[in-house]
Structure formats: C-alpha cells, structure tokens
C-alpha cells in the first residue's frame, strides 16, 4: 500500500509540475500577480509530494519490504541500517527519485527564501524549473519506476552492491546531486532573464548564492567519490580520468567559471551574455553527466549495470534542454548590453582569464571523454580506442599551471584598470618562496618527473600569494598590529570565502602533485613475519585472520609499521566477501601522516600460507582532502555573507513592482 502511495504522490507531483510550468509563465506575461504566486505554492506542493514519495521508498527499504522489486534487487534483511537507507539511492531508480527530490528542494527554497525577488523573474524561474522537473518525472514514471511490485514477494533481497556499502559512498550521491541539480537554479534564472531580456547586478546577486551552494556541494561530492575510490578500491589511486569522473568534473569546471563571472556582473555590470551562457552550460554539463553515467555509452570502470533505452530518453531530454536554451540564447543574448568598461589588465580581465581557462579545460575534458565515441561512429564500430590518464594529464596540467599562477595575481588587481608590475612587486615573497620550494623539491627528489617540482612551486606560490592578498587587505605592518587584527576579524565573509577556497585549491594541488609524482608501490607475496621496506618505513606482515561481519566474511591482515625500529602504527587491511552476492571487496589499511599515507592492501592467499600484498607510500595525499574541505568551507562562508541576507538587493530603475515581501 505504501509503495502505491509513493507512486501516486510522484504522479501527482508531475501534475503539479506541469501546472507550475505553465501558470506562472503566463502570469508573468500578463502581470497577473495571483498567477505568478501560484508558482510559490506549487513549488512547495511539489516538494511535499516528492518528499512523500521518497519517504515511501525509504520506508520500503527500512522495513525490508520484499514485495517491491527495487528493494529485492538492492537490499537484504541482514544489511546494516545505514546501508538500508543509502540503498534507496544506491540504484538507478532510487537515484533518479533522489534527483527530482533535490530539484524540488531547490524549487521550494526559491519559493521560501526568494521573497525579495521581483515576482515576474521568480515566476519565470520557477516555471523553467518545473519544465525540467516534468522531463525527469516522465523519465522516472515511464522508464524507471522504483515502486514496481513483484509477486509473489521474495523471501529475501539480493543485497546492495557491496562496493556501495560504505559510509563515504552513502552520502556521496546526495552531495553530488545537490551540486549537479543546484546548477539547475542558475539555469532557470538564466532562462528567465533571457525571456525578460534583462540581466543586471541584482540578477547576479540572486544567482550567485545558488551557484555557490551548488559548487560547494559538487566539490564535496567529487572529493568524497575520490576519497572512496582511494580507500575502497585498493589501487592507491584517487582519480582515473574515467568518463564517470569526468562527468562530474566538467560541471565543476564550468561552475567555477560561472561563480567568478557572476562577480563581474554583480560588481561591474559587464560580461552579462557570457555569464548567462555559462549558467546554461553548467547545467547542460550536469545533464550530459547524468546521460553518460546512466546510459553506459562509454566504458567506465565506475559503471554500474546500465540500460541503453533509458540513455536514449535522457539524450532526448538533453537535446531539448540544450538545444532549446541555446536557441533562446542566440535570439535574446544580443539584447543584453554591458555598460562597464575595463582594460585587459584588471580584476575583470583576470576573472575573464579564469573563465577562459576553465572553459578550455572543460572543453578538452569533454573532447577526451567523447573522442572514443566519435572514433567508434566514424569507423563504423571497427576501431575502438580509449583515452586514458596520460592524455588528460598531458593536456590538463599545462592548462592549469598558468591558471594557478594567475590566481595569485588576479585578486591583487583593482577593478577597471590595473598595474601588473605593481601587483607582481607585492608578490616578491611568494615568488622567492616558490622558487625555493621548487629547488628544495628538486634536490630532494632523485631526478623524476619535472611536474613534481612545478606542482610544489605553484602550490606554494598560490598559498603565499593568497596570504599576501589578505595581509594587504588588513594592511599588516603598515598600521598598528592591533588595528590589523581588528580589520582581520571584520573582513567580509565573502573575502574569507575566496581566501579559503584559493588556499584549498593550493593544498589540493600539493596533494595531487605528491601522490602523482612520488607514490611508491610495492607488490609482493609475504608470509607471516616477512618485512618489506617502503620509503623508509618497515612493514612487517603479522599474518591474517578470518572475521565475521554483519553480512560478510573478511580476511583481516595485520601489518606493523616501524621506522628505524620505532613503532609507527598497525594497519588492518581487509578483503571481504559479501555472502549474498558472493562478491569480494578490498578495504585498504591506511595510516595518515602529514607527509603522506601509509597504505596496505591484502590480496589472495596462496597454498603455502603467504598472501599477495600491496604496500604504498602516497605522499601528501591528506592535503587533497583538507583542500577540498577548505574549498567547501569557503563556499559556505561566502554564502553566509550578510550581503545576501541584509539589504535585499533591489533593482535600480525597476519597471516591475517590488512586492511587499511576497508570501
């Protein structure tokens, strides 16, 4: 009964969405306030209905209702509660339901918190949002109904894919979707603005928080996925330039560009058409990502069972959204006039450079990701190729290096017209330290990749450069220290956000460089008592024992790690076999140090009682995660800046009437 209720609520939500895509739009044309306000109510209603629907599916999982097909295929009565809950979105149907739930959350948030928005813009944005929702409701109801019943009910379920039974991956999809779907808000506002033919500073100020939120979640989602791959797959790697990873990375790159171009629109009233274009692009990439992941057209190590038919549906949806919005853009964008003028060397110029580099980077990732499809199509299926990490590294690193060099300079340039020489003079300390760090790296490492040196140098350049910018703001050593401290405390949150995000990127670069350039890997068979030395650490294998988990059996190995005879840590890597699916997973044993991770994996046992083991020393990896967290905190701080709450942005010379706090 509850499953049917969920299904019914979902169909109702679609009906509400259909009404919401029409009524407020017409209301906005006819300046009919009640019709426009309908959007607020329907957005709330939609959210409520989808939440009910989602709650019903969750109920089926939590109570292990094995008369629901989706539960049978992805759950088991012996599964821990956390994974019963995460199992709701650990499968295609459920994850699409999560997608529309998040879409509805964003819609409801606009209705609830957008009281200062001009009613027409809000009505149009909610209407566009509803159109996207209708597409996805149709998709779920027609091709991926999570509430399908089986008769007779199964005795027990087939369990969730064991790789997904992991705390990191339990919250990875919701985070990622909050990011993906969050860009739909910027998209809806962009389309609404195109219809109105008006983009101004106030518009940018409304769009920016949504973009910031989406970007922060996407950053977290990508980092979590990467972290999961790092400790769960047991290859010691964290990023493989796999199509599924690229699918989440492209919207991130474009989202980063959008975030920065919004600043220019808000502060300087220029780059409007470009910003609208980026907003359309960011969401298009989100949809493309969904398509790539769900259709299985590309070989991916991360791919789960896929269904080409569903892929076609999303592809059509993608074509309608991208085609329609770009056509509207081509028609309306020329009307968006910019007033702010600026010289190439200026804050605007630097932000534009960021946009160009981010855009180009997203372009090459797209090219590398889709190239195998082109070749396959051109050669009529005769030639199959794969484009792997070497390609992406060869292209991406040279593009990102100038980007990071420019990142330290950009914030030091004033708006409109800047002096590059002056900015560079302020950065002498960064330059000196970057060279010093590079040289230190060069002497320490024994003639390996030059990228290691470059990576360390640019990471330290960016860290010192960002701190220099903060020092300049608080006029450190130019005024009494006490005054500087006061200035430091009173810095606007948005500037804190920028500082943390930029520092975060620098730390991530350091982590990626360390792990990419100097990872040491040793594979060997070890009998209990054997010792192997990796990067100065002695790993002694103390044998393995069998353990019983809630729904798996595990072989748990024990490594005692010492350095020069001093005890460091004990690692307990596991190899688990999940009983229901008879599927094995690896749990790496990891001990994190500031200088790097000690990483041990246990493999198959052999007849003589020894085990194949893999030992890694992954330098600086922890900085990647710290960097990602810093970027997220940065976006959160920026989001909480009082500018977005107090002093509600109002339009100058507004033709539309300001509402008296609608709703």
């Amino acid at each position, binding site marked *: 009964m509850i499953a049917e209720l969920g299904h019914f609520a979902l169909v109702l939500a679609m009906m509400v969405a259909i009404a919401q895509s029409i009524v407020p739009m017409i209301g906005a044309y006819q300046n009919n306030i009640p019709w426009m306000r309908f959007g607020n109510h329907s957005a709330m209603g939609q959210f409520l209905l989808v939440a009910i629907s989602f709650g019903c599916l969750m109920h089926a999982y939590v109570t292990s209702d094995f008369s629901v097909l989706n539960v049978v295929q992805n759950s088991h009565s012996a599964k821990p509660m956390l994974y019963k809950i995460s199992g709701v979105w650990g499968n295609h149907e459920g994850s699409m339901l999560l997608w529309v739930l998040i879409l509805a959350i964003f819609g409801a948030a606009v209705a609830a918190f957008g009281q200062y928005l001009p009613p027409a813009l809000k009505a149009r944005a909610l209407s566009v949002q509803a159109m996207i929702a209708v597409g996805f409701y149709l998709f779920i109801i027609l091709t991926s109904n999570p509430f399908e019943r089986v008769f007779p009910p199964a005795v027990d379920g087939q369990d969730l894919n064991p790789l997904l039974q992991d705390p990191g991956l339990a919250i990875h999809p919701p985070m990622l979707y909050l990011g993906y779907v969050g860009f739909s808000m910027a998209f809806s506002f962009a389309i609404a603005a195109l219809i109105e033919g008006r983009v101004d500073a106030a518009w940018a100020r409304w769009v920016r928080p949504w973009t910031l939120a989406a970007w922060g979640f996407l950053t977290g989602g990508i980092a979590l996925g990467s972290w999961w791959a790092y400790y769960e797959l047991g290859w010691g790697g964290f990023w493989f330039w796999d199509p599924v990873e690229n699918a989440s990375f492209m919207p991130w790159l474009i989202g980063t560009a959008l975030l920065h171009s919004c600043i220019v629109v808000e502060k300087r009233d220029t780059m409007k058409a470009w910003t609208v274009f980026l907003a359309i692009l960011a969401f298009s990439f989100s949809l493309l990502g969904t398509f790539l992941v769900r259709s299985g057209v590309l*070989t991916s190590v991360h791919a789960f069972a896929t269904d080409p038919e569903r892929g076609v549906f999303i592809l059509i949806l993608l074509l309608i959204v991208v085609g329609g919005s770009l056509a509207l853009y081509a028609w309306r964008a020329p009307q968006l006039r910019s007033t702010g003028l600026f010289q*190439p060397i200026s804050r605007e110029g630097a932000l534009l450079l960021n946009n160009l580099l981010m855009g180009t980077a997203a372009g090459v990732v797209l090219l590398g990701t889709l190239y195998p499809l082109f070749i396959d199509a051109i050669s009529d299926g005769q030639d199959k*190729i794969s484009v792997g990490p070497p390609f992406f590294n060869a292209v991406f690193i040279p593009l990102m290096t100038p980007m990071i060099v420019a990142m330290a300079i950009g914030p030091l340039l004033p708006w409109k017209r800047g002096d590059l020489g002056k900015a560079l003079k302020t950065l002498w300390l960064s330059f000196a330290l970057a060279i010093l760090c590079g040289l230190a790296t060069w002497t320490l490492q024994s003639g390996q990749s030059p990228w290691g040196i470059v990576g360390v140098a640019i990471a330290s350049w960016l860290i010192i450069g960002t701190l220099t910018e903060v020092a300049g703001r608080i006029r450190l050593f130019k005024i009494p220290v006490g005054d500087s401290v006061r200035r430091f405390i009173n810095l606007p949150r948005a500037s804190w956000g920028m500082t943390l995000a930029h520092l975060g990127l620098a730390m991530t670069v350091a982590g990626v460089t360390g792990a990419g350039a100097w990872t040491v890997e040793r594979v060997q*068979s070890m009998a209990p008592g054997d010792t192997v030395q990796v990067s100065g650490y002695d790993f002694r294998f103390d044998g393995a024992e069998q353990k019983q988990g809630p729904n798996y059996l595990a072989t748990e190995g024990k490594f005692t790690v010492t350095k020069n005879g001093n005890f460091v840590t004990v690692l307990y890597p596991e190899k688990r076999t999940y009983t229901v699916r008879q599927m094995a997973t*690896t749990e790496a044993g990891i001990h994190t140090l500031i200088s790097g991770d000690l990483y041990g994996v246990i493999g*198959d046992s052999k007849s003589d009682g020894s085990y194949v083991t893999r030992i890694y020393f992954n330098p600086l990896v922890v900085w990647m995660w710290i960097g990602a967290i810093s970027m997220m905190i940065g976006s959160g701080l920026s989001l909480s800046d009082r500018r977005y709450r107090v002093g509600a942005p109002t339009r100058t010379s507004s033709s539309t009437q300001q509402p008296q706090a609608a709703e």
Partner: protein
Amino acid sequence: MKRKHKRLTFVGVALVLLAGAAALVLSAFEENIVFFMSPTDIAANKVSENQRFRLGGLVEEGSVDRSGGETVTFKVTDITNSVAVTYTGILPDLFREAQGVVAEGRLKNGVFVADEVLAKHDETYMPPEVADALKKSGQWHGDEK
C-alpha cells in the same frame, strides 16, 4: 587603449589559448590513444609487438594460474580465439573466470603482458567493447537482463 583594441586583445588571448589547447590535445592524442583489440584481432595480426593496447574478452574458464607468486597468468578469449595474459599484482576484486575483462599492456612473444587490469564495480556490467568483441565473433547471447 581604444575599445576596438581592447576587444581585439581579448579575442587574441582567447585564440592563443584555444590554439594552445588544440596543439596540446593533438600532440597528446598522438601519443596517448590506446586501441582496443579482441583476441581475434590479435590472431589476425592487427597488432605489432610493443604497441600499447587494450585487450578485452572473457576470462577463459580454468585458465587462471596463480602459482607464480604475485604474477598471475590467464587466458582472455572471445570464444573464437584466445590470448595468454600475464599480470603482476593484485587482480581487481571482480576478476572472475568466465567474466568480461579489460586489460591494458603490450604483446611480447605472443603473450600479452598487462600492466593494468580494469576493475568493474558491478558484476552484471559488461564493458561495451567486450560485448562488441563477443558480438563480432558471433558469441553474444543476447542482452541478459
């Protein structure tokens, strides 16, 4: 600077960037693209020694030999033909006999020396290339769903 000149500067920077990116992409494509081959392609001498490529097919039943310490040997087959493969390291968790597999490496004296064996996350997932290789050799038995 006049407005026109400024615009030219921006367009110029964008073009330089794009040209740079294009050059990077082209040179990277040249060096880093890996072809996908089936055992039948190898039997037809489509691959030269020392060319890096991906091999896909099914792990032949009964062919996995783990007696050589950390080096494992097995055969990859598309039913019509099969190729011997050696790999040093820990195989992915979902590596199983009679399941699809993709390995990357080079051919040496008729033996495929893999330096990477790709894992999948889902036992029902078949890499499209493997499915196609099986279709080509006429050994595909429909989409089992």
